[in-house]
């Protein structure tokens, strides 16, 4: 795999929109062509080469391309837009809309990622070593089509509405997760390894959310079903036991919430509904 290295020449203050930073765009191009590609810095068109030092080489097809970004690009938006193959590595923080509409390949960020990570993603793999913002794997405003496939892993904390309108795929969050994980979820799997601020699965119609920490309570529109010993996340069997809830009944939903018994003593009252 051929490496293309992009090194930001300075810390950007004004947002940069650079959805050309993707293996699909750079494949088969020369360094010169990359440098001359126009991107937006605020309301001005600038050459990519004026904001990034560009070196290395390109593969001839997207799957042969690795883009390495060395430095903080937290103001750069749209990296990996619609990418179908290949890899992007960000050594630092990445900006909003990372991996939007991604269809394949992988994106790895050593720092944090902004909001709308993996919006409408269809396939591929995103891994964030730090924290992520709001609406991970979500939809565009007003739309109902969230992530449809692939996997997103967040090692740090995550903002609100992770997996909003999600239709398939897997999101795994290792740190704390803010409100509304899996809101309007239609299918797929979300695993919250630490815990959540609550309102998990609001409006969900299907899919499953597994919470290994404290879930932050359960909404009144979910009904307690049973206690299960394990929860399935893809091929993996996660040991419990878990309180299992179904809902959101307000949406005639068939979704499932799994809250690990050990971390959710505040949900113990549900045990009164267990058949003796």
């Amino acid at each position: 795999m051929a490496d293309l290295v992009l090194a930001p020449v300075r810390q950007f203050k004004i947002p940069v929109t650079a959805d050309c930073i993707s293996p699909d765009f750079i494949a088969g191009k020369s360094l010169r062509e990359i440098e001359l590609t126009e991107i937006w810095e605020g309301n001005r068109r600038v050459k990519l080469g004026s904001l990034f030092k560009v070196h290395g080489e390109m593969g001839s097809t997207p799957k042969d391309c690795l883009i390495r970004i060395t430095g903080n690009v937290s103001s750069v938006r749209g990296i990996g837009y619609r990418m179908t193959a290949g890899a992007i590595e960000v050594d630092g923080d990445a900006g909003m809309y990372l991996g939007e509409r991604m269809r394949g390949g992988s994106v790895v960020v050593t720092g944090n990622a902004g909001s709308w990570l993996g919006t409408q993603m269809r396939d591929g793999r995103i891994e964030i070593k730090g924290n992520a913002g709001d609406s991970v794997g979500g939809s565009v405003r007003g739309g109902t089509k969230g992530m449809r496939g692939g996997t997103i892993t967040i090692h740090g904390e995550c903002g609100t509405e992770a997996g909003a309108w999600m239709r398939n795929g897997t999101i795994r969050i290792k740190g704390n997760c803010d409100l509304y994980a899996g809101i309007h979820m239609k299918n797929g799997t979300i695993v919250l390894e630490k815990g959540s601020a609550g309102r998990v699965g609001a409006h969900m119609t299907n899919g499953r959310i597994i919470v290994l920490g404290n879930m932050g309570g359960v909404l009144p529109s979910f009904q307690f079903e049973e206690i299960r010993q394990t929860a399935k996340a893809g091929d993996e069997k996660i040991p419990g036991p878990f309180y299992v809830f179904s809902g959101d009944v307000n949406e005639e939903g068939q979704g499932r919430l799994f809250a690990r018994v050990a971390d959710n003593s505040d949900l113990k009252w549900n045990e009164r509904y267990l058949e003796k």
Partner: protein
Amino acid sequence: MSKTISENVICTFCASGCDDLEITHNGRDISSARNGCAISVSRFTSTKQSRISRPLLRTKERLRETTYLKAIDRAARILNNARYPVLYGWSQTSSEAISKGIELAELVGGIIDNTTTSCHGPTILGVQDVGEATCTLGEVRHSADLVIYWGCNPIHSHPHHTTRFTIFSKGRFRKTRKDRKLVVVDVRRTDTAKLADRFIQIQPNTDYELLTALRAALKGEEIEQDSVAGVPLETVEELADMMADCEFGALFFGLGLTMSAGKHRNTEAALALVRDLNYVTKFAIIPMRGWFNVRGANEVSTWQTGYPYAVDLTQGYPRFNPGDTSAIDAFTRGEPDAALVVASDPVSHFPKAAARNLLGVPIVSVDPKRTPTTEASEVVIPSAIIGIETAGTIYRIDGVALEARKVIHPPPGIRSDVEILDAIIKRVKALRGRR
């Protein structure tokens, strides 16, 4: 000069659109204002307080008086040179001025955001997910036998709301207070709550849970918790029954939903509840919009750009995504490099982190009166007061457009927002070498 009484004057404070004011004046000064609420009277009789009499320019750290020509030139240069300017405010000016603002934002390539962003922006985001079953205020007056105020306190914020449109109004099918029930849901026993037939006090940040429970109760689903939001389950079910059993219900809600935990999801839940209620009865929901033309800012922005607020025009076409393209987020991240503020005071009202970054960029402000924002500006351009000193279109809470009128003359030499913005647009075009 002789005294004149102007009748049917439209109030430009809140968005209730009271249009029955009687203003006594001599063409320059207002001596009294009748029929309005206490705020309205204060507004109409205090036009001369705190006014800015001349354009101001900052030189050597101090604001000094200048001419409109020089102020507009400086304003145009600041905006023209900016790479990520934010044009903010717009809820206390006319639709005609907002229209000019959008033209200017498109011209210089900026973000144009109105104060909806920190008032009922989350309501609009909720509407974008579920829609909205609503009506004009007169419909509530004629038909509603159940009125709910949720997270709002109209006795303070919209003082004539109850008398003109709800419990104390006289409509075709509901004549008196006895014909209507009032329910208030709030975290405090507000002055509005004191009028209620039923007051439901909830814990802060739990509106979402209660709304969700009401939807479930309405669907006949069993709720397994004993209490929700600090409210006993029986009360929740009773309230759900009350809502389902009325002939025409009206739910008014305020910033209690939009500003607390959940924000646009709270409003989404309220909108969904009212939508669901229409399967069993007739129900409408109306957000209690604040400023007299904040709705107009949404309307104009929407018909011109497709989006109601937080519109990013930096790349030559409209983009909308609050959280990214909204003023407070942009300033909190420290991205903008200039600001135009029209008829608003963000230095006072933005949270500290956003205000700090706003104070770090050159600000052009257009306002009739002195505020912390004008004090911190590079350029201050004084303007006439809409609906008192200059005419213009404004939109009521429910989207009814009214033509606010000119009652008295502005102070000598003071121009309208439309004239000022138009002059800035012309100047920017000239700087760009275009006609």
